[in-house]
């Protein structure tokens, strides 16, 4: 790259590190960093790094790497203090450094190589910044980004809990999570050491808890006193310290584009927090900012064309950032709702916490901390009796539902797992989806190879009378082959679908009785599942999108639940073995069923006699907005299991045994439906 004039706004980790690396690679670059704060003033306390990041820092600049790692606090444990017990997991390799120290080191290195640093310079008009390259390293509220909002397409939304970032002179010897129950709700602390005598101490709680505790009305000193008092036991006489520490919402920032070409031929690029944030509970913001700097400096060095370098930088970093933001979202969501897990025993609670963001699973944790995972496995294998017995991984533990004991936690629609679950078997002729619907029961039962066999029964409702699924589903049969449809309300399912007749009183009795009759007939099966998901007949009653009835079966949630519950109770009376309900716990659609209502429905089903909720979502209407990915239903199953207090079965494209072990051990579900593609396991 030819020598460039570069203006960098912001002397945070991103701006400083980039300037250092650019100047090192090409001393002819003229680089100026503008920072509003004085050189030694900064917010926050310590920041954490992983091993992986350290490798990158070493390769990028040996001198600062040595200084940084020299002052590091290092530890390998995570402590989870919950219900008066501390669980420790090891093998995690953390390092942390005071933000102030990190900035001090990079400032010094910048000066050494000849970067101009101007502190105490607040920029209010970004157009005053000139040069071939303008770098927006000015943090999440980036002035530069906001000045060209159309170009960069940034969106900020609050994420997770209310939080406040304190320091303390208590030196933790682990990454420490503290959970504290109060009359207002649950508070938690994220604490970690970052030098010989200081730790970071972040306190957080959901907004409603924060308001209920009156923290919204307290000033800085009062808030700190409140927190010090709340965690007095854990602090054991040590102090909290404020550094303009106020309660904040974490701003989640996503931007469409990270660079732009200006009319005068210069370029602008976003770096670090000005381009993206990742919730602090995965502790990655500084690392991502510095990795951005490394990638950008390398791209500039590699290319002769500045535009191409910026493209390359964005291409390289975006997918990485996407992954971290996904993990950060799961983690933020976990902590916002962690109070629902307070029913869990400490071991599954801890395992759930450690695997919250999806970046660590059962297998990878076994590598880091085999004895911790052995304890979890043992806890599962002995139903909480022992943490030392030698036990197989959680998926191979039996699961008891009513009188039925499943030999493992895998559910499939072909033989091989603990439960062979087939269906949906239509309870009436007009409840078929396709003309060929209807199973050969004897053949299914004979094929089970010792597994328990479950039968799902249902009525297709307005999704009936469609073609075989080879070339698509919900494609109606030609009129002459179709049969009349019934549904909660006379609204057709999809394009070209026939208009169903509103199910009348007589029809409701007929279909309820058909469910009961089929339950009676299914005596040879071990488990029965009622299909109330995906907008079929019973699911259609549950959703406000599809149930517009004026009688007592339509209206609020209780009314919409009425008929499905009548069917459930009638079947329950006729069927004494385990009974499962497949339920769409959200419609993924505006004005449709929300997860909160889904949890309420699951609770109602359990009250009416369901032993198990098979968690599904969507398909109530064809134009929903599902969020498909690996394990897309797991968070919903977790909510149902912990908030409705009922065992759950979950699919959602789980394809590996490790995913299943992780879901089961974290108590997010009790049974997992394994999707076919990567079926690579065998029974032990």
């Amino acid at each position, binding site marked *: 790259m030819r020598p460039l004039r570069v203006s960098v706004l912001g002397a945070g980790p991103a701006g400083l590190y980039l300037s250092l690396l650019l100047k090192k690679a090409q001393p002819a670059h003229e680089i100026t960093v503008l920072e509003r704060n004085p050189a030694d003033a900064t917010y926050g306390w310590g920041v954490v790094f992983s091993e992986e990041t350290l490798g990158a820092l070493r390769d990028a600049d040996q001198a600062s790497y040595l200084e940084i790692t020299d002052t590091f606090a290092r530890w390998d444990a995570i402590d989870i203090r919950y219900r008066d017990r501390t669980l420790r997991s090891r093998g995690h390799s953390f390092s942390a450094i005071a933000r102030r120290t990190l900035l001090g080191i990079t400032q010094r290195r910048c000066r050494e190589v000849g970067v101009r640093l101007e502190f105490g310079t607040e920029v209010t008009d970004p157009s005053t910044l000139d040069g071939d390259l303008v770098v927006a390293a000015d943090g999440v509220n980036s002035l530069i980004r906001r000045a060209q909002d159309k170009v960069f397409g940034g969106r900020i939304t609050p994420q997770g809990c209310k939080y406040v970032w304190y320091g303390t002179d208590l030196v933790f010897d682990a990454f420490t999570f503290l959970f504290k129950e109060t009359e207002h709700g649950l508070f938690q602390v994220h604490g970690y050491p970052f030098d010989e005598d200081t730790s970071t101490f972040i306190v957080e709680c959901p907004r409603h808890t924060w308001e209920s505790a009156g923290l919204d009305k307290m000033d800085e000193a009062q808030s700190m006193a409140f927190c010090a008092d709340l965690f007095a036991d854990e602090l054991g006489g040590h102090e909290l310290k404020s550094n303009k520490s106020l309660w904040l919402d974490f701003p989640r920032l996503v931007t469409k584009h990270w660079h732009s*070409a200006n009319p005068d031929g210069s370029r602008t690029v976003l770096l670090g927090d000005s381009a993206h944030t990742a919730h602090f509970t995965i502790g990655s913001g500084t690392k991502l900012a510095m990795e951005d700097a490394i990638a950008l400096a390398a791209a500039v060095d590699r290319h002769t064309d500045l535009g191409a370098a910026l493209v390359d930088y*964005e291409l390289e970093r975006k997918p990485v950032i996407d992954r971290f933001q996904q993990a950060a979202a799961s983690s933020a969501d976990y902590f916002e709702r962690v109070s629902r897990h307070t029913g869990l025993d400490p071991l599954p609670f801890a395992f759930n916490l450690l695997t919250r963001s999806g970046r660590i699973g059962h297998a990878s944790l076994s590598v880091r901390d085999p004895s911790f995972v052995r304890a979890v496995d043992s806890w599962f294998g002995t139903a909480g009796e022992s943490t030392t017995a030698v036990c197989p991984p959680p998926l191979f533990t039996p699961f008891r539902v009513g009188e039925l004991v499943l030999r493992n936690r895998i559910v499939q629609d072909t033989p091989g797992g603990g439960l062979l679950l087939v269906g949906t078997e239509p309870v009436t002729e007009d409840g078929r989806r396709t003309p060929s619907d209807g199973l050969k029961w004897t053949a299914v039962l004979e094929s089970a190879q010792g597994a328990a066999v479950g039968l799902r029964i249902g009525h297709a409702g307005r999704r009936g009378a469609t073609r075989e699924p080879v070339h698509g589903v919900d494609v109606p049969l030609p009129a002459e082959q179709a049969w009349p449809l019934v549904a909660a309300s006379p609204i057709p399912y999809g394009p070209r679908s026939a208009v169903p007749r509103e199910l009348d009183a007589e029809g409701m009795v007929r279909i309820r009785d058909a469910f009961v009759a089929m339950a009676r007939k299914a005596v040879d099966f071990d488990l029965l599942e009622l299909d109330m998901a995906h907008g079929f007949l019973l699911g259609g009653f549950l959703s406000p999108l599809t149930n517009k009835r004026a009688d007592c079966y339509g209206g609020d949630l209780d009314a919409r639940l009425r008929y499905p519950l009548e069917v459930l109770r009638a079947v329950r009376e006729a069927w004494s073995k385990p009974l499962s309900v497949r339920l769409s716990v959200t419609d993924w659609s505006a004005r449709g069923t929300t997860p909160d209502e889904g949890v309420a429905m699951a609770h109602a089903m359990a009250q009416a006699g369901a032993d198990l909720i098979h968690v599904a979502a*969507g398909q109530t209407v064809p134009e929903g907005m*599902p*969020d498909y*990915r*690996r394990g897309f239903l797991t968070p919903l199953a977790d909510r149902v299991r912990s908030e409705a207090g009922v065992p759950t079965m979950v699919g959602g494209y789980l394809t590996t045994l490790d995913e299943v072990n992780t879901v089961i051990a974290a108590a997010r579900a009790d049974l997992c439906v394994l999707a076919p593609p990567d079926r690579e396991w065998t029974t032990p």
Partner: protein
Amino acid sequence: MRVGIGLPNTTPGTSGRLIAEWARRADAGPFGTLGVLDRLVYASVEPFSALSAAAAVTERVGLATMIAIGPVRGTAMLAKQAQSVQTLSDGRFTLGVAVGARRDDYEAAGVEHRTRGAVLSEQLAHLRAENADVPILVGGNSGAAFSRMARYADGYAHGGGPARAFASAAAKARAAWHDLGRPGRPKLWGQAYFALGDADLTAKGEAYLLDYYAFTGPFAQTVAAANLTTPRAVKDLVRGYANEGCDELILLPTVSSVDQVDRLAEVLG
């Protein structure tokens, strides 16, 4: 994985003679499919017309829209066009459809942009009921697009990008497929741009991509930078896509010179 090649129907200075000769050479080469792009408000040859021309001079190679913007055509017309290419090619056609990325295409067609998703679903339901013998791919990145794909199509048409991006979309496609209870798995198609030749030629390719994607703003530079301009880059991408379970990867030209077919054939060897 099969590798296909794009027809130059949107590259500058294309002609009937070029398209015919291109198709002939592709038919004789190692390519699985000839793909075309669709853009109303851009100097280009309409995709079904381009494929019809190709159908007339080829025997073997598959023909596909990657993708056609469904809603800018009336449903019956779309079905007619698809069926026509299927007939002209004796059953070698695959219809890729999506809602497209450009609002001005909708304005030019006099079609509402807001309802494009619902209209595409209607078109798919129609095609599935009336044109059962045309294989269908659906493209798009939203959750709605994936469920539309899994509900009505035979597979997924990915819009391009590094193999990682394809892999992530493929997982979503498989998840949607499984969720909707479809047997087997979705066909997965990918695409990427290439220009093989000297610096002059690759510069032309880049200029075309910057122009073609100008409406996306800075993203145009991203697409242009990803253009595969060396045999090595082509091979790496092909290997990356194959590893992620791609069934057919269409390499789209960025310049209108027929030697691109031979150069690509040589690289794929």
